[in-house]
């Protein structure tokens, strides 16, 4: 009985100590990052200022993420003013490379981790996507599987607004 009570107190203390990352919302500045992609090239978010950025958190084991990859590749091909950046939340690089070999990726993929997830407000489930404006502010956040065409429509609308 006493042991169980101690366990409860321990859980509560652990929960209080754990610092939750600040959630992100549209209008906020997208947190900056600079990391090497799978090919060893440096990917710095700041370098894409002036472009619309679509940041895609995914993993090789996530079926709804894999479904979206050909659409992201098509989107990157279709719109010159857009840069897609993939952040894989896989535990290791090998399964990510397997996916990037299967699909002909035309955008950089970084290997994410818990720090990266926390930087973006906590990526606790996949997929998660951020649409970032040319000035670095977050325009949209999507969590979970999306109906086909959602990202394309949002990107087209954002580019239309920017070109007005």
């Amino acid at each position, binding site marked *: 009985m006493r042991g169980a009570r101690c366990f409860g107190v321990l859980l509560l203390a652990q929960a209080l100590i*754990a610092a939750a990352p600040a959630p992100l919302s549209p209008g906020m500045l997208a947190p900056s990052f600079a990391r090497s992609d799978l090919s060893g090239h440096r990917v710095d978010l700041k370098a894409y200022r002036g472009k619309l950025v679509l940041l895609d958190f995914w993993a090789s*084991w996530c079926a709804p993420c894999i479904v979206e990859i050909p659409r992201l590749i098509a989107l990157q091909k279709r719109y010159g003013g857009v840069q897609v950046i993939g952040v894989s939340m896989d535990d290791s690089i090998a399964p990510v490379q397997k996916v990037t070999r299967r699909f002909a990726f035309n955008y950089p993929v970084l290997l994410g981790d818990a720090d990266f997830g926390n930087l973006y407000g906590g990526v606790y489930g996949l997929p998660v996507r951020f649409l970032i404006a040319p000035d670095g502010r977050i325009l949209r956040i999507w969590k979970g599987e999306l109906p086909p065409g959602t990202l394309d429509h949002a990107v087209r609308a954002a580019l239309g607004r920017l070109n007005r």
Partner: protein
Amino acid sequence: MGAVRFAMIALFAAFFAVPLAATARAEGAADAAIPQDARIEPAAFVDQLRGTNPPATILQVGSSVLYAEAHIPGSQYAGPTGKEDGIKNLASHVDGLPRDKPIVIYCGCCPWTRCPNIGAAYKHLLSMGFTHVKALYLPNNFGDDWVNKGYPVARGN
């Protein structure tokens, strides 16, 4: 010419059909593998955690990156059970336990019906002879159904 065209179509179909079939296998795998009475709702599980009789063994059977971001306090990482190495990891965590020990597994890496881990973990524990296995029912993911509800969370490895 016809044979070449047929071979190209077959190759194309194989290239796309295999991954799609794998996706289809993952879809609904949790629903098929885990009966309703073996599921536990988050609110009920939180009550157990806060109560005087917390479950002895809680296992996260998904991704270690997501575990490091946030997990249920007191839970151990024992995945990813959608892969063979993960099943071995799970087995090593529970091998010495009495088979009637209550075990709660959870994942929440992606929606329940799309999760590659939770159904596989449940089936494997049953195949090892465990008789008191429950799966935490997280319909969307661990973020929506646990963290954002304000339930207790620990971070790090």
